[in-house]
Each structure stands twice: as C-alpha cells, then as structure tokens.
C-alpha cells in the first residue's frame, strides 16, 4: 500500500487571511501563537502547517469545531481559496502552482464539491442543477440530460428532475448536491460538512447512502464534519483539527483508544463514556455494616430501606472488608441470624480507586453487588451501584447530572 503514490498529498499548507499574510506566515513559522499574530498584525491564521496524504479510494475525514479552519482547508484543495504557502499535490501535480486554465481543467473533471448548505441554483430545475458540471464541460444538451438522470438515479431522485430544488426537503436537496458532484464522475470528492445542516435522523440515512455509494464507486473523498460520531462512522482515517492544525490523524479506532491530546479526549468522552466517566462521578454514600456489631435482621431492614443492592462490611479501621447482598443476608437469617452466620455470608468486596474509569469495572458489575470505592489511605469513601454504571454509560440520566459528571471527570 505504501508503494502506491498518494492521490492527494498536502504538505506545509498555510492559509492566512488579513493585511499582511507573508509577515504573519514568518511569525507563525517562528512559533508565534495565533492570538498574538492576530493582535500584532491583524492576520487570521486559518490553516497552519497542515500536511497529510490520502490514498486513492480512501475516505478521509477532517473533524473539528466551528472556526477550526476546516472550510478554509478544503477550499484550498481546489483553490476556491488560494493558500498562503504549501503544496497540494494531486496525482503529483501541484494545485497551488496551477495557472487558471489548468485549475479549471482540474475542477471540471477531477474534483467535485458538495456544500454545507447544498448551494443548489434556485433558478434551475433539479435536473439542470445536476447537469451544471457537464454544461461547464461543454457536453451537449441531450447527453447532459441523460447523464444527469443517471446521477439522479443513484440518489433515487430521478422523478424530481423537472422540479424546482425549492420543492425538496433538506435531505433530498443534499442528495441533489451529491448527484451534481457525481455527475461529472470526479476522482476526488470534496465534501464540506455536507450533512451538517440536516436533522440527525436524515443525517444517518445520508451517511448510510454515502457509505453504499462509496463501496460502489471508490472515490477518493475528503469529508469535513464537526460531528465526531459521523467522522468515526465514515472515515477510513480521521484527522482532528483545532485552531488550524491537525492535532491527530489516524484510524477511527486509534482516535478513540488513544486520544493524543486533551482536545481529542474531550471529544472522545462523548463517544466512549466508559473511558471518560470515572467511578467518582457516580459513587454514592456508602451503606455499611460493621462486622461483629450489626445483626442480620437489622442489616436486612437497612438494606431494604436504602434500596441498595448490598451492604459493604467495614472493619474497625474504616476499610472495606466485604460485601453482603440480599440473597446472602436472607440465607443467613434463615440459618439462625447470629454473628457467625453473618460473617459466613460476607463475600469479598471489589475495591477501586475514585479515578478508575467506568469501563474498567464493567466485569465487576456483573456480580450485581456494590463496589467499594476506597481512597489511597485505604478507607471507604463511597460505593458504586452496578445499575448506576449502566445508567451513566447509556447517558439516560438527567442532562443536568450528566453535565456535572462530565465536569467532574476531567
């Protein structure tokens, strides 16, 4: 795979908006921060020293928050925006150096683009919109029409060819946008947050449709999104972008498993709560049983009243010595209910540190008994109810609580 030349290779790409991009570029290369450059020269560093390469047929996703420079980056690739510095090699040819005619040829046949707000032309029918690229290529009217209808077939909108785009729903409009791009049979598809303006449900459908199309056509796709789930779902590789830079580039799995940056981690916590939420965020006041001091009947009553799955048995030192559940307590009660029966019923307790990730206690939860949370000194500071773990992981509790928990986690 490595011996194949990349389809697209970007290196050292910068885009600086403002009165003195060259000066700002020099400062940035010397390591000046974005904010300082903005206040000193008035220039906005939108894209800063980005390098990456994309294989033919690869689905490359760039994910970042609004304002991180994604749109600027993707527009540099087909020179809707002229980069300040850097190389953009498409099949080995530098787009940044192309003259107007070479650039036009590239846009006509090699690269097509899909836009966030669809950018359909309101004065053209759906069919004429899809024909647009072909018309620019100089394809004659009837062939244009045929090919546009074929492209509309791909997105199942042939029946709408003679209607106005205004008559379509958002999802349908973006499918027209996609058909318009596919109609010219481009090798590279640039997609700037194509599903960003759609409802979540429609977005999922569109993602599926795109995956299906990609399986069939194997285009090289550069896809921009602000939604990490979308990025992980679609991308063969994902780049995380912040403040004009790539913070991390890798396979979706690698991004989730080893976030290289607090920024990525902050994103991934949303993806894998178990990795991000700690025991501390969901632990409760312990309901305890002092060994040797409490009797079985009292313990049963307390367990019942508290609604817990079990009681943690503490020793004189305040550490967690064991745990008893309802089944054990009931058995102990029927066996006589004395202190000996109680200690016989006591099982080993799992102890964890407050900062343990929820993902690491999944297995222990399956016993259905409380897990003791102990601090470094070994004293009990709380318990975790198994049910709470699953609630936290599925994110079903009130959103207020969740926000709190999220804050605590980091």
């Amino acid at each position, binding site marked *: 795979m490595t011996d194949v030349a990349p389809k697209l290779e970007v290196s050292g790409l910068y885009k600086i908006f403002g009165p003195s991009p060259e000066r700002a570029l020099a400062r940035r290369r010397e390591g000046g921060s974005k904010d300082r450059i903005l206040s000193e020269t008035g220039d906005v560093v939108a894209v800063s020293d980005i390098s990456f390469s994309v294989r033919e047929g690869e689905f490359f996703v760039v994910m970042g928050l609004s304002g991180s420079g994604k749109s600027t980056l993707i*527009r540099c690739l*087909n020179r*809707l925006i002229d980069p300040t510095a850097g190389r953009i090699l498409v099949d080995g040819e530098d787009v940044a150096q192309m003259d107007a005619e070479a650039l*036009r*040829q590239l*846009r*006509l*046949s090699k*690269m*097509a*683009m899909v*836009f*966030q*707000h*669809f*950018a*359909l*032309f*309101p*004065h*053209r*029918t759906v069919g*004429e919109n899809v024909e*647009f*690229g072909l*018309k*620019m*290529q100089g394809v004659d009217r009837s062939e244009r029409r045929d090919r546009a209808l074929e492209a509309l077939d791909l997105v199942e909108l042939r029946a709408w060819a*003679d*209607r*106005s785009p*205004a*008559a*379509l*729903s958002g999802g*349908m409009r973006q499918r027209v946008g996609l058909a*318009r791009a596919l109609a*010219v049979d481009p090798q590279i598809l*640039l997609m700037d947050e194509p599903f960003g303006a759609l409802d979540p449900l429609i977005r999922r459908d569109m993602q599926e449709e795109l995956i299906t199309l990609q399986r069939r056509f194997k285009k090289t796709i550069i896809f921009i999104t602000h939604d990490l789930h979308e990025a992980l779902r679609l991308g063969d590789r994902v780049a995380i972008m912040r403040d004009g830079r790539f913070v991390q580039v890798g396979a979706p799995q690698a991004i989730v498993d080893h976030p290289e940056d607090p920024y990525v981690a902050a994103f991934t916590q949303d993806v894998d709560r178990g990795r991000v939420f700690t025991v501390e965020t969901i632990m409760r006041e312990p309901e305890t049983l002092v060994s040797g001091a409490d009797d079985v009947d009292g313990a049963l009553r307390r367990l019942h009243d508290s609604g817990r799955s079990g009681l943690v048995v503490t020793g004189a030192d305040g550490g967690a010595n064991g745990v008893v559940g309802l089944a054990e307590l009931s058995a102990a009660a029927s066996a006589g209910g004395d202190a000996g029966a109680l200690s016989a019923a006591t099982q080993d307790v799992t102890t964890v540190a407050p900062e343990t990730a929820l993902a690491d206690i999944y297995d222990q939860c399956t016993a259905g008994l409380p897990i003791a949370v102990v601090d470094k000194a070994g004293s009990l500071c709380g318990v975790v109810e198994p049910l709470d773990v699953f609630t936290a992981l599925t994110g079903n509790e009130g959103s207020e609580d969740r926000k709190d928990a999220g804050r605590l986690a980091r």
Partner: protein
Amino acid sequence: MDRLSDIYVLPVDDWIESFVKDWLVPNFRPAFQAIQWPIDQVLTGLDAFLLTIPPFLFMAVAVLLAWRIGGRGISLFTLAALVLLDLMGIWDDSMTTLAMVLTSVVFCAVVGVPLGILAARSDRFQTGLRPVLDIMQTIPAFVYLVPIVMLFGVGMVPGIIATIIFAMPPLIRLTNLGIRQVPEEMVEAGYAFGATRRQVLFEVQVPIAMKTIMAGLNQTLMLSLSMVVIAALIGAEGLGLLVFTGIGRLDVGAAALGGIGIVLIAIVLDRLTQALGEPSLGEEKRSFRGLAMRLVGGSPAADKADESAADPAGPAGAAAKRN
C-alpha cells in the same frame, strides 16, 4: 457684522458657471452631442411607431401581452386604462410619453445594469460610484436642467437625458445589491465545477439576482414617469407638456387630464414589470425563445400550477398544510 459673508463671499456660483460655460460646454459639446444621437434614434423610432399603429391594434397587442405576462386581472386593467386614454382624447400625448419613458428605460438598462455588475465585482468601483449615485439622486432635477440645456439644447432628447440621470441610480444600486446578495456558496459552487468568471456571472449570479434587478428596473421606470412633467420644462412633449401648459394657464382640467394619463400608464407599467420579475424555472423558459413562448402560448397560470405540483410531500403534504 455677524455673518462671515459680510467679510467675504465665496463665489461658488461664479466658479460653477465658468466651469460649465467656459470649460465643459466649449470642450465637450461635441461629445455630448454625440451622446444625443443614439437616444434620438431610439426615441424617434419608437415615437413614430407608437403613433402610427392604430390604437385598436395597440390595445389588442397590449392586452394580450399583459395577459401572458401578468394574468387576467392585469390584462383587464390594461384594457380599461387604454380605452380611457383614448376616450379622454390624450392618446397621442400618451404614446409620446410612453416612447419617451421607454427610451429612457432602455438607456438606463443598457448603461445601468453593466455599471451595477461592475460595482458588484469591484469594491473600489463601488466606493467610487456610490457618491456619484448619491448626487444623482439628491440634486433636484431643476438644478441640472440648466447645464443640460446649455450642453444639449432644448427638446425631447435633453428631456430624456435629464430623465436618465434621475432614474438610473436605483437600477445600478439594485443590480449591484442583487449580485452581491447571491449566496457565496452558490458562487463557489459555480467555480468549483469549473465555471469561468464570465460563466459564473451569467450562469449563476445574474439569474439569481434577476428578481432584484427587475425591481430596480421597475423603480427606474416609475422614476422616469415621474420626470415627464419636469422634462416638459425643457421642451419634452406628451402628457408632461399637457400638465405643464395646464399649470401655466391655470387650466385645472388640462393639467388633471395629463396627470390621470401619467398615473394610468404608471400603474400598467408597474404591474407588468413586477409580473415580469417573477422568476421562471428552467433554462427553456428563461431563454429568449422561452420568453417568446411565454408571450404567445401557454398561460401564466400553468406556471403556477406547476409550482404547486412540486410540493415534496404531494397530496399528503398538502393535507398536512391544511391542518
């Protein structure tokens, strides 16, 4: 001694007079005369044409046009207005005024739309043009009547030139505005699919801005009509002259007659240009052939039905809307 002018009077009037008389007129008179020529050609052609065709033929054609463009209501109103003009005995004056107004609008469009497009594409040009337009719109027409007479003499054509100066700014402004308002993404889409600057202008920007441009044309038309009386001051004929002489002789009847004629023409032209500004979907209909087809066949009502049929949810959507 409480006025500065008691000490010194700035001779602005003298300066302007000598600027116009001693520099502008002797140096540029030929150039200005040359401007007159095309205007004169269009005007005399139109005027002669409108005056020679029989009123009944004109009415028939106008009503048909109005029906195709704007539908039944407008065509009926057009018919009523034209009949009234004829009945009031001001048909010829009306045709002269119409010729004058149309000539002015033609030249406003020929000059104004390109200027508006240039302004939309260049911030510097826009910045330079803006004060000129402000001046054109704020200086009372009476003020530039005098230099116009000095440069062009009196008559219909100088009247039209005054009208053009007065009526052109909104068309330039709205053309500029309309093109600048085309969403950036659509322009980008044009370029992204390999369009040249020219193609982006004519395939994307101008068509999308058309509604706004037509609104500018409508404004220009209305302003031109409002100038016909003032233009009569420097020798323009038609309904304006009727009003003007009516005022001079304190003949309320004659002045009102001219006024009514102007208002009737204004309403008809206003409705027609507004209806023309409604965007039509599809390349076929936008082409000249399409426009011609629209004028001779296929009722405008068909377009509207087409649009409602394009409801995405079909009958279900319509039902939902009713609720």
